């Protein structure tokens, strides 16, 4: 498996991701699945518009954990190429904050691996986001408590 993992302050370059994931010369690839998470526009109860989300991370741990998720996915499914990129900093409404792309021999594995990666990332990786409204800073988005063995 060849993988590309990054936690970045730069806008995600989807063309580069597609070039990496669907590059010719991988004759075993039969399916590519791609998930994008995008900042969704919202209107508050007071009529204000959401402008963006500000993402913060525990960068060293988040990066290491993203590498671990890629390894675990590679053990569960036959993955030929995997891209897992997450933005930090301000992500405006309509822009992607995360891209996950998986190339596998058959489509079912690509769908399953992609779904598992986004669900597990949202449950485990130390990244947080806070709303930015037109009328000022908002709340931290209610997150998922991380389950650790007791």
């Amino acid at each position, binding site marked *: 498996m060849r993988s590309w993992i990054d936690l970045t302050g730069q806008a995600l370059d989807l063309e580069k991701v597609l070039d990496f994931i669907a590059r010719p010369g991988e004759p075993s690839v039969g399916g590519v699945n791609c998930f994008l998470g995008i900042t969704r526009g919202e209107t508050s109860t007071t009529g204000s518009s959401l402008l963006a989300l500000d993402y913060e991370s525990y960068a060293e741990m988040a990066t290491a954990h993203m590498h671990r998720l890629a390894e675990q996915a590679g053990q569960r499914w036959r993955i030929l190429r995997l891209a897992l990129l997450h933005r930090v900093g301000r992500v405006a409404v309509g822009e992607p904050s*995360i891209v996950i792309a998986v190339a596998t021999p058959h489509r079912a594995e690509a769908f399953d691996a992609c779904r598992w990666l986004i669900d597990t990332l949202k449950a*485990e990786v*130390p*990244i*947080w986001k806070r709303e930015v409204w037109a009328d000022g800073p908002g709340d931290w988005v209610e997150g*998922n*408590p*991380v389950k*650790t063995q007791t």
Partner: protein
Amino acid sequence: MRVTVKLFAIARQRLGTSELLLELPSGATAGTALDALSLQAPADAGPLLARCALAVNREYVSRQSVLHDGDEVAVIPPVSGG
């Protein structure tokens, strides 16, 4: 022994700092560190801290995990990546 505590997102905001040092007795656990932190935190931060996970040297641990001098203990509020 002395450990570094890192705070993120809403925990950083509620406690007003991103990093602090804690002096703990030898044999202290991650849970001990969280208890010591709670004593320094505003009283209304208690429920938030109770919902946080803990990591030591960038690995999630249980509250029972024993700490060592120089460890980096991170307080991880409920995560919202993606």
